[in-house]
């Protein structure tokens, strides 16, 4: 305990104060379990915020990483990198896309996707076609450009002046969207299922309208699949649920199961606007990250992890629905696969804290939406244990609530 106290003090002294970490010190992870230095174990229903989709210590990923470390961690994009080519090939073969650009993060991928969309619009129609439509509750990153597509005003406060041309339209509102898109629209960006924004799932008619109207106005339809992808929703990519293809898709998080990476996937008419020198990155697609990405794709495909996520997601959702039958705190259960949101009638922070004390890491977003993002290999017995704890915690909290009324 003395060690962690010292660490907390040092962190406060030396790190910029952007996060407020829990006073836990995980030092080992196996599958869905995180072990802390004091020997406690936690079943992780957050999975590094949807990153560790194959769980901790996946052997294939570890082996690929060991091999990359032993051979070559980094050169630069001045050379050919076999694992980068292989990762791109696998992504192209499994998706709508024709070409891939690797970056370091989801935000960087979203920035790059915007650059591609604006450059194409500029080349074809001139500088006036530059507007970007994003949606309410969206989260696309925190860089200077992407925070303008992230619907949380506090994230933007004090960072102005802001880049121009960004608009927010209500999510799932076909009418509002049809009134907002125009000849000036260069790009429309959305998460097929909003993660950070409270696990809202795009409606079918909304998706159809997005595709039709972006085609009519020749605007890029960009799907931000940073959180939904690599099997989490029960399909390798969430867009497969709707049978609608975007023009550009961004990935990150689970793509390398923990090694920082991002990717832009695009159809060739978009990909071709980039030429040597027009965009770049030092680390993006380096051997370490793309070796991990290749191994992740192999496990995803060989072991049909998306199908497993669908199955375990049904199991978790069924359990939550059963809980909701006699639990008045629960307003609505949303999501697909193992990206599940439980909207509560009150704030969820106390539940998150009580669950942590019982050995379960869950997350609350938007103040009142419990978000479940476990590794896709989570065991049903672990789900049972979490549900039992959640049931007790909710009963206790709703019981307390009724006393104060």
């Amino acid at each position, binding site marked *: 305990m003395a060690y962690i106290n010292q660490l907390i003090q040092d962190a406060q002294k030396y790190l910029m104060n952007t996060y407020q970490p829990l006073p836990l010190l995980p030092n080992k992870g196996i599958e869905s379990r995180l072990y802390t230095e004091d020997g406690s174990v936690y079943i992780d229903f957050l999975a590094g915020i949807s990153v560790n989709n194959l769980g901790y210590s996946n052997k294939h990923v570890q082996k690929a990483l060991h091999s990359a470390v032993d051979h070559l961690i980094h050169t630069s994009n001045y050379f050919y990198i076999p694992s980068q080519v292989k990762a791109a090939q696998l992504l192209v073969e499994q998706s709508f896309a024709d070409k891939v650009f690797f970056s370091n993060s989801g935000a960087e991928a979203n920035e790059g996707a915007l650059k591609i969309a604006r450059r194409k619009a500029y080349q074809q129609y001139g500088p006036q076609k530059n507007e970007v439509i994003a949606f309410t509750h969206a989260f696309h990153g925190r860089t200077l450009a992407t925070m303008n597509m992230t619907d949380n005003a506090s994230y933007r406060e004090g960072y102005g002046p802001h880049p121009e041309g960004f608009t927010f339209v209500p999510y799932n509102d076909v009418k509002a969207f049809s009134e907002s898109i125009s000849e000036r629209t260069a790009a429309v960006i959305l998460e097929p299922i909003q993660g950070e924004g409270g696990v809202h799932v795009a409606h079918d008619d909304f998706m159809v309208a997005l595709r039709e109207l972006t085609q009519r106005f020749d605007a890029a339809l960009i799907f931000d699949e940073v959180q939904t992808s690599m099997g989490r929703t029960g399909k390798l990519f969430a867009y497969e649920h709707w049978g609608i293809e975007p023009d550009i898709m961004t990935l990150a998080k689970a793509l390398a199961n923990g090694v920082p990476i991002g990717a832009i996937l695009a159809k060739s008419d978009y990909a071709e606007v980039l030429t040597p020198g027009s965009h770049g990155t030092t680390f993006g697609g380096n051997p370490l990250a793309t070796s991990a990405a290749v191994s992740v794709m192999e496990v995803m495909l060989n072991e049909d992890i998306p199908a497993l996520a669908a199955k375990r997601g049904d199991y978790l959702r069924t359990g939550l629905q059963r809980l909701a039958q006699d639990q008045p705190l629960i307003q609505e259960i949303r999501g697909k696969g193992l990206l599940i949101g439980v909207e509560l009638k009150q704030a969820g922070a106390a539940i998150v804290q009580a669950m942590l004390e019982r050995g379960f890491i869950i997350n609350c977003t938007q103040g009142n939406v419990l978000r479940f993002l476990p590794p896709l290999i989570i065991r049903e017995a672990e789900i049972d244990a979490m*549900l039992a704890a959640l049931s007790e915690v909710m009963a206790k909290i709703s019981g307390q609530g009724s006393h104060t009324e």
Partner: protein
Amino acid sequence: MTFQGRNFNVIQDFTQAELNYLIDFAIHLKQLKQKRIPHHYLEGQTIALLFDKTSTRTRSAFTVAAQDLGAHAEFMGAGDVQFGKKESDKDSAIVFGSMFDGIQLRVSKQETVDTFCEYAGVPIWNGMTNDWHPTQMLADFMTIKEVYGSLAEQSLVYLGDGRNNVAHSLMIMGAIMGVSVTIASPEALAPASEVLAEAQVLAQATGAKIRHLENPLEAVADASVLYTDVWVSMGEEAQFQERIQQLMPYQVNQELVQHCQKPYIFLHCLPAFHDSSTQIGAEIKHKYGLEAMEVMDDVFESPEAYQFQQAENRLHTIKAVMAVTNGNLFIPDLA
């Protein structure tokens, strides 16, 4: 509930409902066997039994279970399988998987079973590793259910080396099944903290209490099941003297069971050093003057002792596992 094609590797892979189904199905199969009603669910299949160390019950149970299910069992011992010496486990798994319909492994390394699960492409049954003993758990809990009629409210106390595969498996199984499990052992032989922690988290689904206690008398106070195992595991024979000194207070004998405050049954996964009639037992007596080690005859031969029913149940539970994972049975969802 889907079992077809699944591996039976570690208990954590199964839910309480699934494990209950397996136990109840084993009880059903036991009745079929007693009434001589055929149950050839694996007709025409050939299964491999791979061992890197000796085995009496596991080998017998798998062989007879295969026979009862209409399958042929092929035994291969340490001299017949490479287990990583000349051929990698992965390559062996692919080859065996291409020929056999199912594979049982009783091997030292859990990784070997994991690798087979990954690459064999046919159901893998974990017959025991240094880490886990899942088929033993089904037989143990089936026996408890047969005796008491239910697992609810049961409290199992394991006395002995808390670090071994049986103690660890009991904690996980108890956690999932809602049976409280106390491991009574000296601190030096306490269960791995990671397994204890994992069991305690899983136990929240069921309310089972999973704990480690040093004091054996305190541990057995509210026990309904007393469980012990050999003090010296396979491969640790050089440590007899040290282990005897450490574990003597945990010996299950009349003096200890008098501290049980309610009716109990005794279980042992066997073989047991309960007298000096075996060669090793005689040596122990000669060297240390001990009549028995982990359990005395006065308990082993008492009406409370169910170790032989427990041993027989290895057959029925293993048969249940093989049948549901490879027999294309119709199993309705019991949620």
